[in-house]
């Protein structure tokens, strides 16, 4: 039996995906299916005066037109599912269809149901809505000022919550030798998973059951929330997500659209499909980031960082999204010290509502915002005290012997050797030589920059006790059932819900390795609440750490039972049985053996089972991890900036990551690459822009700059492996590291290149125009 853990096996899921046989929600067709089209507000803030559906009702193929008046007494409000403690959070009642006030462009006011998608669109255009426009607020810090319009009557100054952590640090800052202050704008991003969101709801009036196929990262959370909103008990509600075309956090939330499609399907007794357009996706699917951060760092003149603190205004959009409030608090504030041993830290976060699209998790969710802050501040501090940024990092990184390391907020970093990854990155780069080249090039009027990011992040979300303590309205454990069929083939049911991360392959590698059977004999089932008892889904780089942990434990239960049956068959005591490479053998007598498959058949035939052993062979585990996991690493970017055009060219990018044990290196590399491009996208290209009236100016792929293939060099990746002690597989998680680490590395590199011009910082994205303007204004400093 060859080793399969750690091997770059080709992906199992690709067999259908490369042949056009994926089953994304919009690919589904059901007999009698009809189509929903939403009528959406063109105003960011307005009173609804009237909705006239008469003309639309008369259009060909139209079955029904429903407005907020029709749904408001039949549907519950869409809740947030994260209530950070001690933050005085105020709920933002979110009706599926607005009936009174619209609060962002795209807020739905009516739905048309018609026989074809084209008919539904035609009729939606004929719904006449009269609005009384109101003044809008867009910017998170301006929204809290006196005299600004309020998005929700009950939310004074638009402050939905105020969350603080850490002690008063005034004394530390007053006594510090060096204090660096800076304000960062962590711009709003649009996740843009390539599959638009969709929902298809089917009501069975014989069984009174509703099935909803929906683009979700967490079907069981969706079932939980939909059950409450629709008033359908969970045992009559099935949520299915077979293939989901990317999520990046934007498919965590429960949205009005699937609620309305579900409600209409039950009302009309017809399957109802709703699919968003890309332009709708821009307007209504959750956005990410959007902070204003006022940051202060205190340190000594010789490079010892003593304190970091931040006051942040976090824009949450018009309504608090499912995980929205947790992102700028727990997932951000608790890790602003980054990978550094900083004794004092505090965070003060205002969660602000505005007339914009709701904001929720986007790849990294809170940790990119924290990492950018600390990694940029370290560079600004290094400049201030005229030290090399690497030297400052080396001096302040948590030392290898300090693990488990407790950060100023009580997070326990699991394991690591932060200097180890930095050392490898320095060697790969040949840093001293590159600094010499940089100096020589500057004399020729050529500007290259080197930017570092030595990051740590927390992921592998669980345990549930912590989830409860931090206000997440759910558990963060995971379930797994490993069902061995009579012939020895295996079906694994997981509560995680992968949507591109490749766990149909990596999970099979775990089970195949442990049972000593070919991975082709193993099928991974996910994304169906009728087939999987419970699960919390895929986000926060938790799938392998928590879902994989559950699978490992369930597999061990199978082995434990099979061993009893094998011992009985071999007529020895259980303690004399050794299980290796799919064979049970008698210890010391290797030719007395029986295969896993033979034992499985015995388990099912049940003709002769040991006393007290039940027939059949399967194991189920519900695994709650001990703690978060903490991947870390050292990234470095090398850029050149053309002073005549402001154009930035990414010359090299080195990522040295430690994500614990690696199950499939090919998939790991893919995750890192994808994260890097999203993080670099934030640094250089992407940014959502609203005008003062709350109109999204970057509302299509024409206007929002998505990274393209030609923007990038080949990435240089390397790893160290420090297993996490917090889960049985020793894995840490890799889904978000690239997006977390890369953004500050790029900006640090560009600022390093622009140093001769006296430019200290520029707001992201660093477009050529912005860079060129800054160079023009600072020519004197050249």
């Amino acid at each position, binding site marked *: 039996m060859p080793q399969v853990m750690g091997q770059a096996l*080709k*992906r199992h*899921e*690709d*067999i259908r*995906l*490369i*042949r*056009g*046989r*994926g089953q*994304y929600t*919009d*690919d589904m*067709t059901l007999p009698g299916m009809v189509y929903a089209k939403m009528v959406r507000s063109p105003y960011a803030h307005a009173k609804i005066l009237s909705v006239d559906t008469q003309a639309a009702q008369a*259009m*060909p193929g139209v079955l029904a037109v429903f407005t907020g008046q029709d749904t408001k007494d039949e549907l519950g409000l869409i809740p947030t599912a994260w209530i950070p403690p001690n933050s005085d959070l105020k709920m933002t009642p979110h009706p599926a269809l607005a009936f009174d006030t619209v609060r962002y462009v795209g807020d739905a006011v009516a739905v048309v149901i018609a026989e074809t*998608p*084209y008919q539904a669109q*035609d009729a939606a255009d004929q719904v006449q809505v009269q609005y009384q426009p109101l003044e809008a607020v867009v910017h998170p810090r301006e929204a809290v000022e006196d005299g600004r319009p309020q998005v929700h009557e009950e939310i004074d100054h638009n402050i939905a919550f105020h969350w603080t952590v850490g002690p008063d640090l005034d004394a530390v800052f007053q006594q510090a030798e060096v204090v660096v202050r800076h304000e960062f704008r962590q711009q709003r991003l649009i*996740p*843009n*998973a*390539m*599959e*638009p969101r969709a929902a298809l709801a089917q009501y069975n009036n014989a069984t009174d059951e509703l099935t909803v196929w929906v683009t979700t990262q967490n079907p069981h959370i969706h079932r939980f929330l939909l059950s409450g909103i629709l008033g359908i008990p969970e045992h009559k509600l099935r949520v299915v997500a077979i*293939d*989901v*075309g*990317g999520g*990046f956090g934007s498919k965590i939330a429960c949205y009005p659209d699937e609620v309305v499609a579900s409600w209409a399907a039950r009302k009309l007794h017809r399957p109802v499909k709703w699919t968003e*357009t*890309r*332009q709708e996706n821009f307007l209504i699917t959750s956005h990410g980031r959007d902070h204003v951060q006022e940051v202060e760092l205190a340190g000594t003149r010789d490079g010892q960082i003593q304190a970091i603190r931040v006051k942040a205004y976090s824009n949450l959009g018009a309504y608090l999204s499912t995980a929205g409030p947790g992102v700028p608090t727990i997932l951000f504030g608790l890790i602003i010290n980054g990978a550094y041993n900083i004794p004092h830290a505090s965070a003060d976060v205002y969660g602000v509502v505005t007339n914009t699209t709701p904001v929720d998790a986007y790849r990294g969710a809170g940790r990119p915002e924290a990492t950018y802050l600390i990694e940029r501040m370290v560079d600004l501090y290094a400049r201030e005290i005229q030290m090399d940024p690497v030297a400052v990092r080396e001096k302040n990184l948590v030392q290898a012997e300090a693990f488990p390391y407790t950060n100023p907020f009580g997070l326990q970093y699991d394991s690591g050797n932060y200097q180890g990854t930095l050392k490898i990155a320095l060697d790969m780069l040949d840093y001293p030589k590159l600094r010499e080249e940089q100096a020589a090039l500057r004399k020729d009027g050529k500007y290259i920059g080197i930017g570092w990011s030595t990051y740590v992040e927390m992921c592998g979300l669980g345990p549930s006790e912590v989830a409860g303590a931090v206000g997440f309205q759910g558990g963060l454990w995971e379930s797994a059932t490993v069902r061995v069929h009579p012939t020895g083939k295996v079906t694994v049911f997981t509560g995680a819900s992968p*949507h*591109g*991360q*490749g766990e149909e392959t990596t999970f099979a590698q775990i089970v195949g390795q442990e049972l000593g059977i070919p991975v082709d004999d193993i099928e991974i089932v996910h994304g169906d609440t009728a087939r999987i008892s419970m699960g919390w889904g895929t986000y926060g780089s938790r799938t392998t750490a928590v879902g994989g942990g559950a699978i490992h434990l369930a597999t061990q239960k199978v082995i434990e039972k099979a061993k009893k049956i094998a011992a009985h068959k071999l007529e020895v005591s259980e303690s004399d049985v050794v299980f290796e490479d799919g064979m049970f053998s008698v210890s010391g007598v290797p030719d007395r053996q029986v295969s896993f498959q033979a034992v499985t058949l015995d388990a099912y035939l049940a003709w002769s089972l040991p006393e007290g052993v039940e027939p059949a062979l399967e194991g189920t585990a519900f695994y709650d991890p001990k703690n978060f996991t903490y991947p870390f690493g050292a990234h470095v970017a090398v850029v050149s900036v053309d002073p005549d055009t402001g154009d930035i060219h990414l010359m090299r990018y080195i990522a040295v990551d430690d994500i614990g044990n690696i199950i499939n290196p*090919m*998939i790991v*590399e*893919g995750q890192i*690459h*994808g*994260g*890097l*491009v*999203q993080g670099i996208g934030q640094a250089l290209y992407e940014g959502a822009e609203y005008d003062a009236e709350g109109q999204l100016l970057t509302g*299509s*792929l*024409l206007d929002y700059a*998505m*990274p*393209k*293939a*030609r923007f*990038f060099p*080949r*990435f240089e990746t390397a790893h160290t492996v420090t297993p996490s002690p917090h889960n049985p597989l020793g894995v840490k998680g890799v889904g978000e590291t*690239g997006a977390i680490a890369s953004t500050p590395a790029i900006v640090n590199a560009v600022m390093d290149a622009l140093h001769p011009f006296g430019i200290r910082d520029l707001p992201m994205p660093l477009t050529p125009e912005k860079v060129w303007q800054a160079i023009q204004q600072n020519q004197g400093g050249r």
Partner: protein
Amino acid sequence: MPEVLTTVTMTVNGQSVTRSIEPRVLLVHFLREELGLTGTHVGCDTSQCGACTVLLDGEAVKSCTVLAVQAQGSAVTTIEGLEGTRLHPVQEGFWAKHGLQCGFCTPGAMMTAAYLLSQNPHPTEEEIREGLDGVVCRCTGYETIVRSVQQAAALMSEASETSGAEEVG
């Protein structure tokens, strides 16, 4: 609005199909809704993402920007028709080199790659990256797609060396 239907006939993946449709129906909707060929995906509405790319008389087009009636009399190849008795080298390449994650943009990316290689069997990395400009992938970071196309090119030139015939998309 009265529905005026028009008859359209085209060859899709080698089979002749005739349907009565509204003249405004986009080719991508024709393929997905009328023919049930859901491998071709709709990722945007402004012709940027390339998820809907198919071959129209051998040329890569974004099927969200072509009316079905414009394909009258033409031959269309979708992802479902890319393979013959074996996987197409582009499919092999994407599988071997991890050119996909969520798989949503993948059919369009592969059709784009098949077209690129039909025009330029030995592209440089730069040519591949330029050739993928009409493809937006949010998952992979593109490098593995580049490697996939390189792998496909290698497989195709091996195949043409052994059979003496150039394989086309």
